[in-house]
């Protein structure tokens, strides 16, 4: 291979590493992303002189790049901030699909009995890439609410998954040891796609960010495997970097939720019954509701208010209304802070992004560890569209699907105002005892409308 191309790949690899490094610090993050993009351009441009193009090759590359770039840039620009997690899932899935197809094309060119060193990574890339593609599409469907976000389980599910995995292993051996023919690796691909779907179905929508991160690492590994097949240094290094950092990131994310990765991925099995049992016997309990005037007065004469934002705030685009309320309160001398749960919203950092967009001062955003001791001194915990992250059953109901997740101690505040669209349970699909707490006032409605009403009520108080 040409020395210059190898050197260009080396520069690209350095760009990726520096980019990742910067992406993990708040100051340099945006720059880091750009450095990585520069690395990508270098790697792409360096590849071209190496190739012998057929006329058809030139045309399909041009068409593919134009279509892909249009979908990618338009999709990424148009998407609302609330829908970003599913967009990431989509972009990850197509990458996995591309890796699998590259491996299929390589296997086709090898003939019936390829060398193990070439066939093994191809087969690996087909399986992992297909799982990542199909799994990401299910994650997308769950987050986009094209299907239920609840875990989907059925009797014998683990047996079915086991049979699928065994069948995949059988075809892997067939391709490697018997004959590498289209029938065997197409079957392999189809089975891996089914496994990808089966793998993500039993995982609840609230856990999707962790799943997407894991599938992201998978795609990285599939890309690295394709690199071994093509003897391409850039693919191996970049794919492996993503595979390794993505795996660590997946672990860090599940740590932030206070759960093990195994619990996130396989926790749905056998837990659904416990969840429904816990709900029984709660019928007939009453909740207190308050009017905008009641709550406005309560807030206006408080000293400390902690706002707990959640997905409801994101959906209603209520971040500006929240800031407005905080400003009105601060004018009256009320101390306002925001308590940010690491997984509030539907992705870690979701709330930080939204509130930053509304120009909420960074100092007012407090992370869970920092703010949890302050709740007991707070006069009001104002929960805006959050639910699972303040659900006390994470602390005291061992049967609950979210048991063990660290939560915000909103229940320790002197008063709790719970703003919600309805009594419907949150994303994890479980009831929240906090709504029935005698200290709690419910305030139903769209988060943005409700906050606007509260602003008026505080001004009038």
């Amino acid at each position, binding site marked *: 291979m040409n020395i210059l191309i190898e050197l260009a790949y080396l520069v690209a690899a350095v760009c990726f*590493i520096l980019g*990742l*490094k910067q*992406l993990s*610090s708040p100051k340099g*993050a*945006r720059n880091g*992303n750009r450095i990585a*993009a520069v690395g*990508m351009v270098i790697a*792409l441009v360096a590849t071209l002189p190496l*190739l012998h*193009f*057929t006329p058809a*090759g030139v045309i*399909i*590359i041009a068409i*593919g*790049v134009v*279509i*892909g*770039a249009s*979908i*990618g840039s338009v999709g*990424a620009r148009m998407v609302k901030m609330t829908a*970003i997690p599913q*967009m*990431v899932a989509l972009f*990850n899935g*197509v990458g996995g699909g*591309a*890796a699998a*197809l*590259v491996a*299929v*094309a390589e296997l086709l060119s090898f003939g019936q009995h390829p060398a193990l060193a070439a066939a093994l990574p191809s087969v690996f890339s087909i399986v992992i890439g297909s799982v990542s593609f199909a799994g990401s599409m299910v994650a997308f469907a769950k987050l986009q609410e094209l299907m239920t976000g609840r875990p989907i389980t059925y009797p014998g599910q683990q047996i079915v998954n086991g049979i699928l995995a065994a069948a995949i292993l059988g075809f892997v051996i067939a391709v490697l040891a018997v004959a590498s023919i289209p029938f065997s690796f197409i079957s392999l691909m189809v089975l891996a796609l089914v496994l990808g779907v089966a793998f993500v179905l039993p995982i609840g929508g609230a856990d999707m*960010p962790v799943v997407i991160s894991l599938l*992201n690492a998978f*795609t990285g590994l599939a890309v*690295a495997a394709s690199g071994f097949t093509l003897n*391409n*240094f850039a*693919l*191996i*290094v*970049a794919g*492996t*970097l993503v*595979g*390794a*950092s993505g795996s660590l*990131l997946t672990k860090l994310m599940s740590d932030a939720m206070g759960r093990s990765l195994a619990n996130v991925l396989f926790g749905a099995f056998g837990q659904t019954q416990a969840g429904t049992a816990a709900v029984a016997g709660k019928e007939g309990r009453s909740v207190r509701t308050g009017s905008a005037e009641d709550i406005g007065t309560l807030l206006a004469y408080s000293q400390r208010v902690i706002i707990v934002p959640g997905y409801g705030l994101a959906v209603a685009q209520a971040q500006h209304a929240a800031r407005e309320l905080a400003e009105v309160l601060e004018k009256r001398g009320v101390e306002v802070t925001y308590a940010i749960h690491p997984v509030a919203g539907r992705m*870690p*950092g*979701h709330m930080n992004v939204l509130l*930053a*967009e509304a*120009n909420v*001062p*960074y100092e007012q955003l407090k992370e869970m560890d920092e703010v949890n001791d302050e709740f007991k001194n707070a006069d009001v915990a104002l929960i805006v569209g959050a639910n699972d992250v303040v659900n006390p059953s994470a602390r005291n109901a061992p049967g609950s699907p979210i048991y063990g997740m660290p939560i915000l101690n909103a229940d320790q505040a002197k008063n709790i105002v719970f703003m919600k669209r309805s009594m419907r349970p949150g994303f994890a699909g479980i009831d929240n005892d906090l709504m029935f707490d005698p200290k709690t006032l419910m305030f139903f409605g769209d988060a943005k409308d409700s906050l606007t009403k509260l602003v008026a009520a505080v001004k009038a108080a």
Partner: protein
Amino acid sequence: MSNELLNELTFFVLSIFVGIEVISKVPTILHTPLMSGTNAIHGIILVGAIVIAAGASSPVNIILGLVAVTLATTNVVGGFVVTDRMLEMFKGRNQAQKQSTAAKESTPAK
């Protein structure tokens, strides 16, 4: 084992260590942008897709190449753009303020 394979394995193993080391201190708020950024980087599969598409002449290879290039380009472009949009929100406070008020004036809400 061929020399080339040995080299590739070396790169592979060292990249694992670098990949883990380089992001080990990421704060929680950057988890999602980092995931999205790494997502864009594995779009490097576009290099692989272009390699297989370049020499395509049979109908099967033409279809495989076309689909692979399309998917991989979507991954690269979408990945970098969406990450940039996320990180835009983290930028210096004053600048972000100017941008968002300007945006509000030019485009009606939603």
